[in-house]
């Protein structure tokens, strides 16, 4: 007697081929790696003193002046190390701060100064370009 060995239908299911899934997932990984940024973005409000009538009220007589140059910074014409900036700005006794950006100062220095002012808890901080001084 001859015996036919047949596997029952429906039981022959093999594991599905996962290679296309892997292809897609690898492409997704590469896409997200290229597109996404991992650095955290911050925004800082900036208050400028407008030229003209506002400039006179923006720089009251008792305000402290922080001048930024490429060589460093001066607080009330005294040289100031960047490491001492926050501590010095915290000792202004409520005087408003005017940050004067010199022509050769990089933008990073301005952000550092705004950072230090914020860390020192100053609320009245104004920024102006150097040309306005003495006008």
């Amino acid at each position, binding site marked *: 007697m001859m015996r036919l060995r047949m596997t029952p239908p429906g039981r022959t299911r093999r594991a599905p081929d*996962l*290679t296309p*899934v*892997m292809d897609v*997932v*690898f492409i*997704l*990984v590469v896409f*997200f*790696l290229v*597109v*996404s*940024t*991992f*650095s*955290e*973005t*911050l*925004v*800082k*409000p*900036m208050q*400028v003193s*407008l*030229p003209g009538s506002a400039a006179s009220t923006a720089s009251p007589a008792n305000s402290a002046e922080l001048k*930024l140059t490429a060589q460093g910074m001066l607080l009330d014409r005294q040289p100031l190390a960047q490491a001492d900036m926050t501590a010095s700005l915290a000792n202004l006794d409520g005087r408003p701060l005017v940050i004067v*950006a*010199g*022509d*050769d*100062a*990089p*933008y*990073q*220095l*301005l*952000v*550092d100064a*705004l*950072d230090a002012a*914020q*860390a020192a808890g100053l609320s009245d901080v104004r*920024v*102006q*370009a*150097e*040309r306005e001084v003495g006008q």
Partner: protein
Amino acid sequence: MSAQFTLPRPERRARGAAILPLINVVFLLLMFIVLAGVVRSPDPFTLSPPQAAEGQQADATDPEATLYVAQSGEIRFRGVTSEADALVAIARLAAAGELDALTLRADANVPAPRIVKLVEALRLTGITQVQLQAERKP
């Protein structure tokens, strides 16, 4: 006299290397990248924003309300490359009430007075709030 060992021939695996652990790892990698990274619209030109320690966290800023300044001084606002045209466009939008806050994304090496003058000009166009964009210091 020599003893002869006959070891059974190792069985060849029926299928190739097990692919399942690899898939697990790659899926985990995908999840990590999706959760840790932020998808942001690309800058119109190469620029590295300044680093800051303080500030408000803002992962998604509207590129339509962002003014880009490259290290060369080149600016870009909604595809407009001339500074005068950009300021006119911003003033129009501000007058129409469609734009009141603007984000300034500038390179860290742009001269600071240029940024200050630009913000002054923006204030004169009627923009009430200008924010400087920076990256958190590592």
